[in-house]
């Protein structure tokens, strides 16, 4: 078994129109920019995207939105230094937004990966974001029922990966990547460095290979922050 693929284009080629796609990262850290750009080139439309944010500038997720490929975004914080792409699409009514508290977003994704269809959280109780959701009391405190979140595909960024899909991450670029890897039918990881089997210490594996379907090496990944400072526009 070897989960390595030679090209980004091949990795995203089976993402169909209408797919739900989780995209890792928090702001630019851990964002799989090259996979997102490959998805732009691939051209799948009417996507539902799950990400903590809504893109920044005109690269990565912002570019995917700018190309009109995203019908709906599920996120916690659709603001950034330069959120003009999402903001314009939202104001124009061309993109739907499901706003989810950040911890609830993380837990819903984790639940999707762990086979937990619903759970209760104190978060958002009594707020507009709990409207329409079941509420229950446990030990005298009120909680909101939230549902799992799953995806057809997850596009994630990791630091090292082996042929079986074991992954490690780099610093705070870990963020949503490991949990999204668990919650998608097909998880595609771009990794900065492919190592041989055994190249990752068993104690240091963060994402075991069972959660990963494809590994593509992108040896010098772009940083969203750097691209935006250089005012790059993709494509």
């Amino acid at each position, binding site marked *: *078994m070897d989960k390595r693929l030679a090209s980004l284009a091949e990795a995203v080629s089976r993402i169909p129109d209408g797919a739900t796609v989780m995209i890792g990262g928090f702001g630019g850290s851990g964002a799989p920019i090259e996979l997102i750009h490959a998805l732009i080139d691939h051209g799948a439309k009417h996507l539902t995207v799950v990400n903590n944010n809504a893109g920044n500038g005109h690269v990565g997720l912002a570019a995917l939105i700018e190309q009109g490929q995203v019908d709906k975004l599920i996120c916690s914080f659709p603001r950034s230094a330069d959120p003009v792409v999402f903001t314009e699409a939202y104001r124009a009514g061309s993109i739907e937004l499901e706003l989810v508290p950040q911890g609830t977003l993380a837990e819903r994704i984790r639940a999707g990966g762990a*086979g937990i269809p619903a759970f209760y959280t104190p978060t958002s109780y009594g707020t507009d974001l709990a409207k329409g959701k079941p509420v229950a009391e446990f030990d005298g405190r009120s909680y909101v029922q939230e549902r799992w979140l799953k995806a057809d595909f997850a596009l994630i960024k990791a630091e090292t990966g082996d042929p079986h899909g*074991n992954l490690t991450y780099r610093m705070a670029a870990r963020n949503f990547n490991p949990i999204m890897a668990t919650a998608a039918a097909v998880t595609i990881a771009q990794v900065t460095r492919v190592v041989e089997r055994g190249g990752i210490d068993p104690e240091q594996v963060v994402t075991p*290979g069972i959660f990963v379907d494809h590994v593509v090496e992108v040896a010098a990944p772009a940083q969203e922050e750097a691209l935006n400072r250089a005012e790059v526009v993709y494509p």
Partner: protein
Amino acid sequence: MSDIQDIKLSNAQIAWRAAQDIEDGAYVNLGIGFPEMVARFQPEGRQAIFHTENGVLDFGKAPAPGEEDWDCINAGKKAITIKPGTAFFHHADSFAMVRGGHLDVAILGAYEVAQSGDLANWSTGKGGVPAVGGAMDLVHGARRVAVLTDHVTKKGEPKLVAECTLPLTGVGCVTRVYTSLAVVDIEDGKFILREKVPAISLEDLQAVTGAPLHVEGEIGDLIAPEELA
């Protein structure tokens, strides 16, 4: 009717047969005891990846006696080894793999399997100290839940039954049963006979089975290498 004892497969042969259905690269959890034998019979050129509930994926073989590291064990508390590609993780992550549908196959033993796919394999209902372990999780997580079992009990009574009489492990969860006499799929609340040992007739097989065996298409010959016996 030929004596079942003479024609039935050994446990090793049942395990061998189950091993033939495991694809290269499949993620597999083998129940404690008899199902563990499946790992021995992986076909040449295929490599399954084994998961154990206590937090190890892609482990190696048992160490030589005296070489055990008791921090490196499987769910049966037997010593295992690491190999290139092994990963360690905690129990909640381990059962996220199980419950989250990430295993391709779980292979378990059984007291009874019903035509509905219900499984009873954790309690004989007779008192004593009850113990469940991970069985109830495994039957609801893996994409395929296979059972390895003798076709009948020691007293000759069917283990494939119309309805389980013992406490259930899971409802409607078993997808395929490998017995000492047959390979039986469970679909839409029915036993579908796929293979049987050549020496037993369909009628005789039905006589030791507690619910109707349906036939769809050809019935294959269930033959395993002799030398495993």
